[in-house]
């Protein structure tokens, strides 16, 4: 299931309505079989980057002004979303979007992956139901009535049935109780082992994400301000202070530190 080279974004610049630059000079790599975390607070540009990858920018009147996105060596710029999904880049959307009026079973059946692999779909559905037993119990239930955690499982399962080589997980932890997040994160880590796919985790919950990721990028104001292995990120003072919630609190104000001292540190 390797994609021979993974995904590479180089110098990406995305503007909304031709005026607002949301993402600038962003370069990141998701190698085969790895888990990469893309971290940052609200408005940092993470979702825009994800939209750029999955081909949804035209919906919001946004354009890629510069840069490239390559997957397995080929550029995917300008491809329609269906095609990007079929190439193997599958998005698990924010807020766990699923088909609410359809049953769990139908939600699983609806995914379409690579055309050559439709044969084994039933088998793959069974396999996934073993990974998420909570779903297996109620296949006939209308998806709209599921709880938050179950919906997230269904969303992930549905995405996996598109036979992805790269899974984009957008804000998994949003609105979920901490213990659920922990369970889901470890299940996500299992996915890499079970299915051999690479995963890009877009998260505000840096602690959970760095718990399972190999490598991480931190975005602020539309740019990547820091990157490194998960270990390196976890031990960085500023990451600890601003994203992991530790460090001493004798600072004047968030604003002072954010603007003055942090700038010195990121590039120091």
């Amino acid at each position, binding site marked *: 299931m390797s994609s021979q080279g993974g995904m590479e974004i180089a110098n990406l610049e995305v503007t909304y309505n031709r005026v607002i630059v949301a993402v600038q000079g962003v370069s990141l790599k998701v190698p085969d079989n790895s888990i990469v975390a893309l971290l940052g607070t609200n408005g940092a540009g993470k979702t825009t980057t994800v939209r750029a990858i999955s081909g949804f920018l035209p*919906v919001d009147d946004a354009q890629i002004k510069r840069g490239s996105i390559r997957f397995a060596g080929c550029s995917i710029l300008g491809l329609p979303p269906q095609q990007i999904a079929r190439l193997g880049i599958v998005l698990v959307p924010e807020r766990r979007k699923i088909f609410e009026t359809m049953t769990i079973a139908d939600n699983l059946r609806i995914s379409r992956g690579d055309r050559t692999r439709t044969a084994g779909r039933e088998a793959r559905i069974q396999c996934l139901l073993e990974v998420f037993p909570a779903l297996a119990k109620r296949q006939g239930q209308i998806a709209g009535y599921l709880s938050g955690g179950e919906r997230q499982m269904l969303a992930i399962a549905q995405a996996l049935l*598109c036979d992805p080589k790269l899974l984009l997980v957008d804000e998994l932890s949003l609105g979920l109780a901490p213990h659920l997040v922990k369970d889901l994160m470890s299940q996500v880590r299992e996915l890499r082992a079970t299915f051999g796919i690479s995963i890009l985790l877009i998260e505000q919950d840096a602690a959970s994400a760095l718990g399972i990721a190999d490598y991480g990028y931190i975005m602020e104001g539309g740019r990547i301000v820091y990157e490194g292995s998960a270990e390196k990120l976890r031990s960085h003072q500023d990451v600890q202070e601003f994203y992991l919630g530790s460090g001493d609190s004798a600072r004047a104000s968030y604003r002072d530190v954010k603007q003055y001292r942090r700038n010195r540190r990121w590039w120091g």
Partner: protein
Amino acid sequence: MSLLLIIAIQAAFYTLLGLGYVLIYRATRVLNLAHGDVMVFGAFIFFQGLVTSGGSVVVAALAALTGAALLGGLIYASIMRPLAGYPVAVGVLATIALGITLRSATTVIWSGQTRYPAEHVGRLGGGFELTPGVSVSGVDALIILAAVAAILGISLFLQRAAVGVGMRGVAENVLLAAQRGINIHAINAVSWAAAAMMATIAGIFFSLKVRLGPDIWYVGLAGFAPALIGGMDSVRGVALGALIVAAAEVLASRYIAPQVSLVAPFLVLLVALWLRPWGIFGSREELERV
């Protein structure tokens, strides 16, 4: 003929038309005001087929259905697909423009004269007795059968078939469907083609029973009332909406005045919009979405 039977036949006609409106709405979220003209165009192809083949209903019907399917797909590909991102109003205006273009084409190709396809068909499948004293013609029986088959067939298709489930996905959340690798354009084209085919069947029946001419587009247009009353995104709502409108039309014609039957669908529609705009089985969110 008993009153109930008349209502049933009219309801069958409206069901076929209404299903077309609903399928198109579920696919592209637009009220296809050209549907009546599609119906007429398809019926004319049928008529042409009758004339050219020397009265063979089967050949003519096949030609009409094929032509209708192609027309539906073509309309989607050339007009509705480019207009995908625009507000609903633009789509509706586009269907109006399409309607008059189609009507004009029909008149240019076949001239505006009224035709009577029934003349070209040998025997219209005679009549047979339903119950003592109540007889129904072959054409009428066929249209009721066609409507029932259409409703059951489409419902089943949407529930079970892979393409059907995909259609339901597109109807609910087209972005998510695209993300899941569903070929939304192919599915929408199929919806449009199916809608055109059903309109053509309705048109064939009308032209055999009454007459054929570019001016009967009005009859096809009235078909959107049952769809709206039942719920623009609901397949089973169409059957109920069709029954209600047909009953109103027939009863008004019988007990008030024949001219009232012309506006009966729209009067019922206005009442329904006032009481329950999203239709009997429609989803309430539709009201906000558009």
